[in-house]
């Protein structure tokens, strides 16, 4: 048991080092550029809106970059190992195939976590600075206003600034990336090239973001029969509802997320991850090397 964990740890560590040395972190520089450039072009309508837009862009950028990183980094793990025949020397050691897959997954998860932390620190710093200056300027402008109004303005700013909801949104972004990584691992367990894996994942990504809209449309516009319901359920089974993890819209609107809702979403993500990993391991165990 403990030696099994040791082997998974060794594979995860090596996977992480490999990915880090492939310079995937360079993507993060691109992220910083997007964040800084876009935030300096925001029209000043009100301080609160400015803060909200900055936050929206930052969360959106983190979301996008982390998802891309999850797909691209995971898609090439198995093909590389197969092509370089690394897999022979690894699996010829007392390593079970499930340990190999778990190691790969945790290696990617490590990479995603570190990337998220780096991006979050940057984005929190930007938002925090803007919030501070917005609060100062609001207080200056509103010295004449009644105290309730000032109070309301400051609450508005705080809701759009650094707070618990933002932390929740970041956590869910990581969960979504982890779901994508496990789905990618699942597809690459039978794919013969990483082009196939990435194309398939692009589809999962799209469907995952659109299916909520499609479902609402079908269920409300048409009196959905069981056939359509079954079809939608089937789609949901294979394509995770990625849109559910995008909280930025609700959070920008100032609606707080209850910790129950958060727990539910994290639970949903965990179910998808476990499901994908089980399928991935089952396929990979049968695969001829």
């Amino acid at each position, binding site marked *: 048991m403990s*030696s099994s964990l*040791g*082997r998974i*740890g*060794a*594979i995860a*560590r*090596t996977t992480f*080092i*490999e990915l880090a*040395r*492939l310079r995937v972190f360079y993507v993060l520089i691109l992220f910083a550029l997007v964040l800084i450039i876009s935030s300096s072009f925001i029209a000043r309508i009100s301080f609160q809106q400015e803060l909200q837009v900055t936050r929206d862009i930052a969360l959106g950028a983190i979301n996008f970059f982390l998802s891309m990183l999850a797909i691209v980094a995971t898609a090439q793990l198995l093909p590389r190992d197969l092509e*370089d*025949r*690394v897999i*022979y*020397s*690894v*699996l*010829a*050691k*007392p*390593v*079970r195939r499930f340990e190999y897959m778990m190691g790969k997954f945790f290696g990617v998860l490590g990479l995603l976590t570190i990337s998220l932390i780096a991006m979050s620190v940057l984005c929190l710093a930007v938002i925090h600075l803007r919030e501070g200056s917005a609060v100062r300027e609001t207080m200056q402008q509103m010295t004449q206003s009644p105290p309730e109004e000032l109070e309301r303005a400051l609450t508005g700013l705080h809701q759009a600034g650094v707070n618990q909801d933002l932390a929740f949104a970041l956590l869910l972004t990581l969960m979504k990336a982890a779901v994508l990584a496990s789905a990618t691992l699942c597809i690459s367990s039978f794919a013969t090239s990483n082009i196939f894996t990435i194309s398939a994942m692009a589809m999962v990504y799209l469907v995952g973001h659109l299916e909520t809209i499609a479902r609402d449309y079908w269920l409300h516009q048409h009196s959905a029969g069981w056939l359509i319901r079954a079809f939608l359920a089937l789609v949901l089974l294979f394509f995770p509802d990625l849109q559910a993890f995008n909280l930025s819209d609700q959070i920008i609107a100032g609606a707080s997320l209850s910790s129950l809702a958060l727990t539910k979403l994290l639970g949903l993500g965990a179910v998808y991850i476990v499901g994908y990993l089980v399928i991935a391991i089952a396929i990979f165990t049968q695969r*001829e*090397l």
Partner: protein
Amino acid sequence: MTEPAIRVSDVTKIFPTPFRRRRIVALQHLNLEIAPGEIYGLLGPNGSGKSTTLKIILGLIQPTRGSVRVFGRDNSTVAVRRDIGFLPENAYFHKFLTGTETLRFHARLSGLGSRESKSRIAELLETVGLTRAADARLSTYSKGMLQRIGLAQALIHRPKILVLDEPTAAVDPAGSRDIQNLIASSKKTGTTILLSSHLLTQVQEVCDRIGILHRGKLIREGRLEDLLAIENQTEFIVENTTPEFLDQLERQIASVNGRVVLRRKPQTSLEQLFLKVTETRDE
């Protein structure tokens, strides 16, 4: 008789080929038995099924029919692989790791503790002659250096069985001499070795027993001396005699109805020459 180190029983391997009607029969009713401490050489032309055999023994691919036992245990259990070190053909490893990191990784996979693996890694780097390149990334290694790191990786957990797929491919003559010496010294510690090769002279030097695969069938097998001995001939190489004595010897041979097939000055081989002139290149 004691339990063989490796027993391959009636293994057939058929590769399905999608989009094509003909299946590839890589191995047919293969039987092999390798005794503990023996060095066995698997020979055969390209595509005869050598690598397939070795991969089946390691459990990397499943036989279509038949079974493999290692020290009497089914080879699909993980514990079996604690006893085996494997060098895949054209060994390649994570390009972004250094030599030391690669060995540390494989040590962890084999369940070695960190203190134990540290000394073992230093020792093995020395053995395969990579001490100087230990901290360079594998992407900068030459083919022969990769082969050496592959060998070190196979030896890391002191396995009782070594399975080597073309261990001397891409290695220079001095390197393949080192590898042969390594094989010979592993034999002294009782390690069982199964290797595949095309290099017949090397196989001849190190192996106790060989098998020849052809189109997935074992067409010849046996002890090297038995297979190669020409029963009615004898060879001797003599030193410090006179030509007159040799002439006399030849006449005596003729008098008993024998025949001298060949009389010549023995030549050094190109390999010997190469080794001699490049001997000092490392120091």
